[in-house]
């Protein structure tokens, strides 16, 4: 029979043992804040990305949380020295700010160890560098193009344009049929305007000229940029919806318009593929097609991919488990099978900057979408790419880019005035180090 003293001692020892075991089994929790996503999207990421990692690392728990206004919430949290372990930003301009403030973990070691420096095109890693170190990996690579109603095009024997002459001829032919050539709208996302500024600047002025201006080697007021904006204004007034309609509609309406033949095309990024497979947006049985945007001036190569980085992933320097967080982050890009499945389960969103072998791509993936992202990857590898405004501009230039162009459409300022102000703001931001680093063009 145990004495009371020995009994208490035994209980204490048992409790200590239990506590030790439970601490040992305590999972490492990695938090990840994600931008606006539906429950189905979250489920897709859980299934295709997170579960494979957890299976291989049973002591790790990945908590994916959707934050509706991610940018604002993240800024506040990071500024307060908090925030999630995996930091998702809207692009290198934002990520580089956090990095410059010492809030992110350098990823060079992890990237090199995993061989991702050989997989991911150097342009995409270099743009996430601050003081020579990489702090973010692009999660979504996007490019601009034409998404068109292929059934409508086939019935009318319309061909995808490759140059400006063909572009205007096509738009005029579509207009003659009483159909709106380009459906678009910026309701709900005013920066939509910059998508078109991007294609006109790159495809008229040429990527080399845009590159020089981005590096501060030439002025944005050069005639080739001014003419690009004048050409865009002319096309916008002739081929896009009337301004008051354009300002009132969003993806629900303009995708519907193309699918129901009220309009023929969208000038849009590869993210549009999240709409094409959705019957709430693409309401008819018509087929869709994708093509790069035409060259708008002789001498400018076709095709090019105007590359944008929609979102980036980084590791919070204040993470309790930075190595585990970095390991999970790297595993996302090594998980080609998971990324391939997301092409089916979350199309248009997870276009990671890695080459996905065709044998891994599920048969249900839209072949048009797969062809679009393969083309963009190939063009990028071959050096045939342009620069999107949302990836390669500082914040104030970016804001002027999409707000100022409306003044041009409405005739309140000229294209030259628009580019003059653009140039002034850009030069100021370049001096202040707010423009993402533009890698040497190869």
């Amino acid at each position, binding site marked *: 029979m145990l004495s009371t003293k020995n009994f208490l001692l035994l209980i204490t020892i048992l409790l200590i043992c239990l506590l030790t075991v439970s601490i040992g089994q305590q999972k490492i929790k990695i938090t990840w804040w994600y931008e606006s996503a539906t429950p189905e999207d979250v489920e897709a990421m859980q299934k295709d990305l997170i579960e494979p990692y957890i299976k291989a690392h049973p002591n790790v728990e990945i908590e994916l949380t959707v934050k509706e206004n991610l940018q604002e919430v993240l800024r506040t949290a990071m500024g307060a020295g908090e925030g999630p372990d995996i930091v998702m930003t809207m692009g290198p301009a934002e990520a580089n700010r956090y990095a410059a*403030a010492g809030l992110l973990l350098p990823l060079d070691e992890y990237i090199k160890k995993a061989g991702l420096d050989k997989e991911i095109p150097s342009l995409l890693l270099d743009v996430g560098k601050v003081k020579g170190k990489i702090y973010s990996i692009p999660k979504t690579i996007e490019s601009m193009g034409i998404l068109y109603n292929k059934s409508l095009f086939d019935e009318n024997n319309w061909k995808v344009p490759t140059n400006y002459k063909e572009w205007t001829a096509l738009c005029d032919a579509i207009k003659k049929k009483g159909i709106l050539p380009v459906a678009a709208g910026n*309701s709900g996302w005013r920066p939509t305007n910059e998508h078109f500024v991007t294609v006109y600047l790159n495809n008229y002025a040429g990527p080399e000229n845009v590159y020089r201006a981005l590096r501060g080697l030439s002025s944005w007021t050069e005639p080739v940029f001014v003419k690009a904006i004048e050409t865009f204004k002319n096309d916008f007034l002739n081929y896009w919806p*009337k301004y*008051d*309609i354009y*300002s009132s*509609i969003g993806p629900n309406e303009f995708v*519907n318009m193309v699918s129901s033949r009220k309009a023929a095309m969208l000038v849009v990024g590869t993210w549009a593929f999240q709409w094409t497979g959705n019957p709430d947006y693409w309401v008819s049985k018509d087929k869709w097609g994708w093509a790069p945007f035409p060259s708008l001036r002789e001498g400018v190569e076709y095709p090019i991919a105007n590359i944008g980085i929609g979102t980036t992933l980084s590791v919070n320097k204040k993470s309790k488990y930075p190595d585990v967080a970095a390991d999970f982050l790297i595993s996302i890009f090594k998980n080609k099978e998971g990324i391939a499945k997301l092409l089916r389960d979350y199309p248009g969103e997870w276009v990671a900057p890695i080459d996905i072998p065709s044998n891994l791509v599920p048969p249900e993936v839209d072949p048009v979408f797969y062809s679009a992202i393969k083309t963009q990857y190939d063009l990028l590898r071959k050096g045939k790419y342009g620069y999107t405004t949302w990836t390669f501009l500082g*914040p104030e230039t970016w804001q002027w880019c999409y707000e100022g162009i409306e003044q041009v459409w409405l005739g309140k300022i000229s294209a030259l005035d628009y580019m003059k102000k653009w140039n002034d703001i850009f030069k100021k931001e370049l001096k202040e180090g707010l423009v993402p680093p533009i890698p040497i063009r190869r």
Partner: protein
Amino acid sequence: MKTRNNKELIQYMPFLLPTLILNLLIVLFPSISTILLSLFEWSGFGKIKFVGIKNFISIFSDNLVISAILHNIIWTIIFLTIPVILGLTVAELLRRTKWEFLQPFYFFPVILPTVVVCFIWGFIYNPVYGLAKYLGIAILGNPSTALYGLAFANIWAWWGFLGAVFYSAVQSISKELYESASLDGASGWQQFRYITLPQIAPTLVFMEIMTIIWSFQVFDWVWLTTQGGPAGSTELLATLLYKKAFSLYKVGEAAADGVLISMFGFLSVGLYFYLSKRGIEV
């Protein structure tokens, strides 16, 4: 007497202190921080640099800010008039008819969340599949009509509140005044003009003052619908502040915008005290 007052104050302090502390933490300290931040250049993290009144010079030389102030003034004028007239009208009609069963109907939009109201009116104004399609106008897409369209939607969800407040004030007016006026041959309009209005003047003036303060704080209506567009035609001071803080990383300038918004609030409060001192019972 003074000693007795001090004793009473000490007795009441434990009840006042929690709220006072909460107010200091949530209201006073952030307010002081905002005023201080407006004197600095700061992105939200990293280096912070004292620049004095540079941010204020910047905002006053910015056409966007001037334009936003103008939009706020237009918004204020609209809300000082139309919903007040509607509220007074319904209060007076209720006084005469006693049809109080109508109250839930006109008050219902007031209790709807702003997000829901914006969604409803976004549909109504949609030129592709909303009612606006049949009217042939894209109200929120046209720079000339967007601000007024938003104000109209806000009025729809707001005037019922004023109606309820004014009716509550009207109910406290002695019925004998109306009976006497009626016996003296006063018309309905004369009763409203010479009895109702003067009797509810304190409530009316108070709501007008609050309307001025609230009008300069408007943010959600614009942000949920037009985000300041089209072409800056619905940009208000609060939306500019938000963009500067969260898109442009200009926390100092955003704070200066916040101080500017507060100044309009202070002016209204100043007016309130001025009217009190002039003997207008508010």
